[in-house]
């Protein structure tokens, strides 16, 4: 079998399909770290984290997007990212992210669930700020 050369990325949010195009490669945040995909990847279903989706388009340009949780499905040559919220990195609202961070820092958790929620909110806000800068 010849090595697969095709890779298509579909980026879907609950409201709309943000991207549907052929790419050379992409990297996205999994729940525990960044993961890269090249053509010919074996099928996979995974949980996404918060972070940066970086893709190399078929014309060689690099695009960066924010991905906020969700799932990834790789099936054949198609990579589908299902995420709650996504936008190009340039469109991240820095002031809003900083306000979120401040709010999360000020939060005093009283239960294990609240603590977890706080840590997730902190991580999310910090990554958004780091991406924007």
């Amino acid at each position: 079998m010849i090595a697969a050369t095709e890779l298509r990325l579909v980026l879907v949010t609950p409201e709309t399909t943000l991207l549907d195009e052929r790419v050379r490669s992409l990297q996205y945040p999994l729940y525990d770290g960044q993961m890269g995909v090249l053509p010919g990847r074996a099928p996979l279903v995974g949980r996404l984290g918060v972070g940066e989706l970086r893709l190399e388009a078929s014309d060689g340009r690099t695009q960066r997007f924010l991905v906020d949780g969700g799932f990834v499905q790789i099936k054949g040559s198609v990579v589908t990212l299902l995420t709650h919220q996504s936008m190009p990195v340039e469109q991240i609202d820095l002031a809003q992210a900083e306000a979120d961070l401040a709010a999360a820092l000020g939060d005093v958790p009283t239960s294990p669930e609240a603590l977890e929620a706080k840590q997730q909110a902190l991580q999310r806000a910090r990554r958004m700020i780091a991406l924007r800068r």
Partner: protein
Amino acid sequence: MASARILVKRRKSIRNIRKITRTMELIATARFKKAMDRASEAAAYTRKINEIVADLAQSDLSFSHPLLQQPAEEQNVAVLVLTSNRGLCGGYNGGILRQALPRIRQFEQDGKHVSLEVSGKRGLSFMKFEGIPVDQSHTKFEDKPGFDEVNEIAARYVAGFVAGRLDRVDVAYQQYLSSSKQAPIIETLLPIGDLAGSAGIDEQANGAAIDYELLPSAEEILEELVPAAFKARFFKCFLDAAVGEQIARMVAMKSATENADEMIRDISQEYNRARQTQITSELAEIIGGAAALE
């Protein structure tokens, strides 16, 4: 027979009304197209979620998620009614409220604690008229419900259900079946009865099973997938309702315009007759007067 002048006046006012209904029809058509586009774009997400659920279902997992479990006792029930903010949309709100009201009464009869949530001014005024207390109300959902706003409500329901404060969530809305068919329906969204939905599983069963690598594990993916599937469905209710409202308004305004056309035709005919009679009688008077002079 009414005098010609009065008929002219009436015809003019009907023409004005026709202009308004015609414009409203055009506006509703434009909004319907937009709402429809949004709904079909959002369908991609729901479809994918269902696909993943179906894929995972094949890997022989025992699904156990709090959102899937039927509580031992249904004591606290939440009913969400999605109506429109504006009227002039035919039987749209009436149909939904006719579905919702018996369900609420039934719950009350069974001695359950109902927390009623209504979206849309029409539904709110109906509940006020019926004397049913509304616990939460929304009037911000128009023809473009945003996921973030809907998600807030969904997250509240999920949290309530997981914590045991809620045992059941019903949603009454206009379901979109096709562009020519919508029906008011009341659905139980929590507990989630059939997770994959009937369509998802069937499609997958035909294709060869794909051996997925699961990261971190099937259980942990499911843990997040189940709420996501619920939220996607919940959001779809709002999108369907938005599309349904515009279709209902379009149809209502179309028939109003047609009625106005018919009335204008009838009145024109009557006016012509009245005018003819008037001329005839004037002529008869002149001829009579001339004959008297001879």
